């Protein structure tokens, strides 16, 4: 498995792990069938992500992506946080193996879900998710 040093670091020492009591937004992405579930907790103040925590079930790159994504959006405006792309997460991790790119998508989606939950609670209009179909690439089985 060709994980970068950064992925291994964030996997072994994940940042922002945990829950937030009475969060302003909670979002989840993924599916236990696929082996990946990411849950994001937000504390928002003055339109800024004041605090963010995650819990993730998934492989090393899923955990590293959660950790990196939370780092990247912490302190950012909600708008900025929404605009974080999976590519940016992967790049910040010095890349992910091709078959693992979907983990970074999951991080983006979980943050979007949490933001939309926040917007809903605020009575604001929610945003639309873009599709990531191109990432369901051909997977191969090793034994």
């Amino acid at each position, binding site marked *: 498995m060709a994980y970068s040093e950064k992925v291994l670091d964030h996997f072994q020492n994940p940042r922002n792990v945990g829950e937030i009591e009475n969060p302003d937004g909670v979002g989840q992405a993924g599916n236990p069938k696929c082996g990946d579930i990411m849950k994001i907790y937000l504390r928002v103040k003055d339109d800024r992500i004041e605090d963010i925590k995650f*819990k993730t*079930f998934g492989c090393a790159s899923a955990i590293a992506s959660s950790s990196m994504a939370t780092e990247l959006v912490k302190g950012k405006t909600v708008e900025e946080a929404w605009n974080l792309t999976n590519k940016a997460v992967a790049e910040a991790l010095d890349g992910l193996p091709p*078959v693992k790119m979907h983990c970074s998508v999951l991080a983006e989606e979980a943050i979007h879900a949490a933001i939309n939950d926040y917007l809903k609670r605020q009575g604001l209009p929610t945003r639309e998710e873009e599709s990531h179909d191109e990432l369901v690439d051909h997977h191969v089985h*090793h034994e």
Partner: protein
Amino acid sequence: MAGQWRNEFKNSRKGQSEMSRQVYLDYAATTYTAPEVVEAMAPYFTESFGNPSSIYSFSDRNRKAMTKAREQVAAVLGASQDEIFFTGSGTESDNWALKGTVWKLAAKGKDHIITTKIEHHAILHTGEFLQRQGYDVTYLPVDEEGRVRLEDLKKAVTDRTALVSIMFANNEIGTIQPIAEIGAFCRERGILFHTDAVQAVAHVPIDVQAMNIDMLSLSAHKFYGPKGIGAMYLRKGTRIENFIHGGGQEKGRRASTENVAGIVGLGKAIEQTASRMAESAPRITTLRDMLVDGVMKAVPHAKLNGAPSGERLPNNANFSFVGIEGETMLLDLDRAGIYGSTGSACSSGSLDPSHVLMAIGLSHEQAHGSLRLTLGEETTGEDIRYVLSVLPDIVAQRRAMSPLWEDYLKGLQKESR
């Protein structure tokens, strides 16, 4: 010998802290090649390198060495040496058995194969290929411990059934199949019977005569032989099409210049490993049971997959730890110098978790959270104690950050109310 490998194994890891312990528990994936096997192979690279099919005296030694290896394999299986054909891998033997049978028998209206849902991909993907080619393949279900039921097999047989292919022992959960009963049934019905015995050979007793086996696949690197060499037992008189066509090697049944060194290594390895079976199988079983008991005690909500001790391979332990994902565990164990395997899809790059774990009725979550530890001749009690000192914390730490585990605990609380 034991010490020798252990030293080499440790030396090869010098880059890492000298303090760190190394515990290899993936013998089902592959074994080291035993030093005495490497030694037996050595003369056939640079010294006695002649093509065994060439008639000159320079190749006499090679021809004799190949005959000896054939005898060594035959002795372990209860076969005769002219029923042993060397191949390039266990996978190749599996491909040969399935493809060779229908290619030969389809013309006689026998175009149906029966196998199981828990076979190795070497069988499953070959079956799927043959289905794309228009042949018919039935995949039998198994019970919760991974056993095929004879009634299911009986129901699946038709007039067109050419071959039953059922593995001897499963590579993930270690469950051993009722091979003798299956063999007796197939013989009675006049259907060819193949067994993928890659995980079983030299580790549990096999007798192709008593068990009515017509074809059997094996692979050297599962019993301390080299990688890239396998064999097929083909009962005398069994007519199947060749798989690799070409020169007349292996009595015209498997073409390619003979891998003499590999063949010698396979022969030496099977003889040596099988000769130690009576001593090593109980020892490894004891260690495995110690591992299983320890894990089940120390890790809450752990599940042992497969059949009970006695009905599974001596060296196999397979657990599911709900709430965590397999690859995560492997990497955490790796940091602790422990090398295992998982049925999680994530570690394989596939979309689905282990088809074997799904076939025995696990949920996706359970399958993703599986860990296979397989022991071998170098495994010690100290190794197992070390694993038991490390694994429970790893599971606890990763569960603490898992939303699935959170949900699972909540579910338990609800239930108990």
